[in-house]
């Protein structure tokens, strides 16, 4: 038998949890509350680092039993091949069920129209919300963190969405102690954010501590990219480069992984997790500010998309 105790020198108390242990325990508590109170929960899984950490926590929460949730991926049709490969391998390895909501299907059927700027991120909302309704999911786990963006800083851990999946910041329930209120009417659902209190650095430290495997695009590698709106985008059939944009090979890595059309790479030689952590600790840019086009559209871009049902 082993006992896990970290004696904190400052407090002298053997019972003080390290910050990662405290965050982990809180997230596990949230997963178990949902398992105990909801009928059809699902984890939004993109193959990005936050959703990978969420799945890791869910696996730990129910050991030695399997995770009592299925996974849902909103596939924009412009995903990184490495990430899709990682997604399928993970689903297979843990014997999970994967639901896919496909943006490409909606475009092919003429329900959604491609935007002039080629960005498919805002197009994800409709396939996501229709899938939630069709499958009657009543709790939808997202990897959103409050440190990402100032509208997210106002988000509850349990966030009630109406039958149109809309977020109304003025209608939010106060969240007291760790007594989460999951009550909802038929057709409504609750978005659940177990990583609410984690920062980008916490996520990376936890990945390092737990030895969690990530898609390789998170680590520095040579890649064919071109510059658009101050970001390095991956060249490909999705829509780049256009006239006047030139492809070059650069040593880069990704800080966030979303759609190829809106997620930019950063110049980096951090090819190990230790180097990534050092790089993030020294960075003067937030991960979204550095690499996400969708948040630059307006002062309230995130709030507006969240109101419509975006994760």
């Amino acid at each position, binding site marked *: 038998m082993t006992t896990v105790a970290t004696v904190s020198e400052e407090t002298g108390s053997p019972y003080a949890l390290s910050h990662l242990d405290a965050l982990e325990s809180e997230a596990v508590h949230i997963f178990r509350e949902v398992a105990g109170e909801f009928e059809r929960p699902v984890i939004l899984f993109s193959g990005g680092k936050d959703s990978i950490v969420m799945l890791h926590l869910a696996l730990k929460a129910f050991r030695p039993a399997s995770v009592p949730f299925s996974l849902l991926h909103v596939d924009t049709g412009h995903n990184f091949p490495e990430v899709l490969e990682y997604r399928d391998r993970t689903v297979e390895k843990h014997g999970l069920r994967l639901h896919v909501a496909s943006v490409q299907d909606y475009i092919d059927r003429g329900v959604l129209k491609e935007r002039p700027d080629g960005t498919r991120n805002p197009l994800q909302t409709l396939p996501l919300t229709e899938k939630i309704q069709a499958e009657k999911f009543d709790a939808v786990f997202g990897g959103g963190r409050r440190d990402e963006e100032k509208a997210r*800083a106002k988000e509850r851990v349990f966030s009630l969405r109406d039958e149109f999946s809309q977020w109304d910041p003025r209608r939010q329930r106060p969240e007291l102690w760790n007594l989460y209120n999951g009550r909802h009417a038929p057709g409504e659902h609750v978005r659940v954010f177990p990583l609410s209190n984690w920062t980008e650095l916490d996520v990376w430290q936890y990945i390092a501590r737990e030895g969690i495997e990530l898609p390789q695009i998170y680590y520095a590698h040579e890649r064919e990219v071109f510059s658009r709106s101050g970001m390095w985008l991956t060249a490909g059939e999705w829509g780049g480069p256009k006239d006047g944009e030139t492809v070059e090979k650069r040593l880069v890595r990704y800080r966030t992984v979303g759609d190829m059309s809106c997620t930019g790479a950063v110049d980096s030689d951090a090819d190990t997790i230790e180097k990534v952590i050092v790089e993030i600790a020294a960075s003067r840019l937030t991960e979204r500010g550095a690499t996400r086009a969708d948040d630059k559209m307006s002062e309230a871009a995130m709030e507006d998309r969240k109101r419509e049902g975006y994760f």
Partner: protein
Amino acid sequence: MTTITTEELAETTLLRFATAGSVDDGKSTLVGRLLHDSKSVLTDQLEAVERVSASRGQEAPDLALLTDGLRAEREQGITIDVAYRYFATPRRRFILADTPGHVQYTRNMVTGASTAELTVILVDARNGVVEQTRRHAAIAALLRVPHAVLAVNKMDLVGYDEKVFAAIAEEFTAYATELGVPEVTAIPISALVGDNVVDPSANMDWYGGPTVLEHLETVPVAHDLSHCHARLPVQYVIRPQSADHPDYRGYAGQIAAGSFHVGEDVTVLPSGRASKISGIDLLGEPVDVAWTTQSVTLLLEDDIDISRGDLIVPSKDAPPTTQDVEATVCHVADAALTVGHRVLLKHGTRTVKAIVKDIPSRLTLDNLSLHPHPGQLVANDIGRVKIRTAEPLPVDSYADSRRTGSFILIDPNDGTTLTAGMVGESFAAPEPVKDASGDDGWDF
């Protein structure tokens, strides 16, 4: 800032704290400085603030834009909802519940304080202790926040006068002690100039105590568990029913208070069935002892009926169960809470039907006087409530356990969170109010 190594970062502890202060006390400036000086405001965020400020014709960047995240807040220039902020130093990680100062947002301060281990109460040195300060101190006391910091701000505007600070600190400490706030640390600061926030002030040689940040970094976060009643609310029963684990039956939950060890005699409430802990799994790893706030899975020697909502406690230290709960509550919903209201009560992992039997008093936070039988509680009201539950609940006094002594009331019709409750006697009700009706004849 010194360089932080990966190892140091992973070893730090976490402190949750809340700020309270009126609009003009300089709360935003203090929060801004803590975030800024700990590198938690990054270049692109500052640039965004500068861009928006400039487009509105403001000469200096409006730092409130950093923290006011909602469109409505920016339009009105006020904070209407609690927001959570994150920053770190080499010694500790911080989760800051940034709560609005207006009196009509008492419920938001209650929300922020419910998970906080420390409250920073700001006072303007020119005004001293005012009504709002007393209100903030009362809420911190009511919520049993273990540590309070009185930050006497704008010392630069009173000539850094030691006498001014000493008088305010003395008045506040006396008031807070009377309320039962266990520990008060008073710090003279200027959030604007930076005196004693992160760096010690050269302007106040007479002050020998810690800066705000230094205090936040060193205040002890864990309690002495030897005096805590061990409690595990069962969240979920883990039964793999797989070839590898055909007979595994574990009771998963987050330890709400105290510690449990293998071999300990335990009782399950409300049924009262007894057994012994045969194993403890800490997220898949066997351990022989576990403590608050670890999420664990307990294995028992006997196959007894246990489900979500039950409470596992040491047999030698079991709380009584009751269907009559008396509590101090803060009403957080817009619709009023009235006598006869049928509600749901969530305590730990258990949700039961309940009815509001009586509202003996409402508290006036300004002077802590009691208004008898107010008839109802409206949004932001704090009062005493008697509740009858449909099933017996094992409740502790909130004074003993913030986790198992707290509950929320929920509207069964639309799921609204109505009320935050704290079980047991309150500092605000020295004498229990007699229940004259004695009428328990009701059903659903």
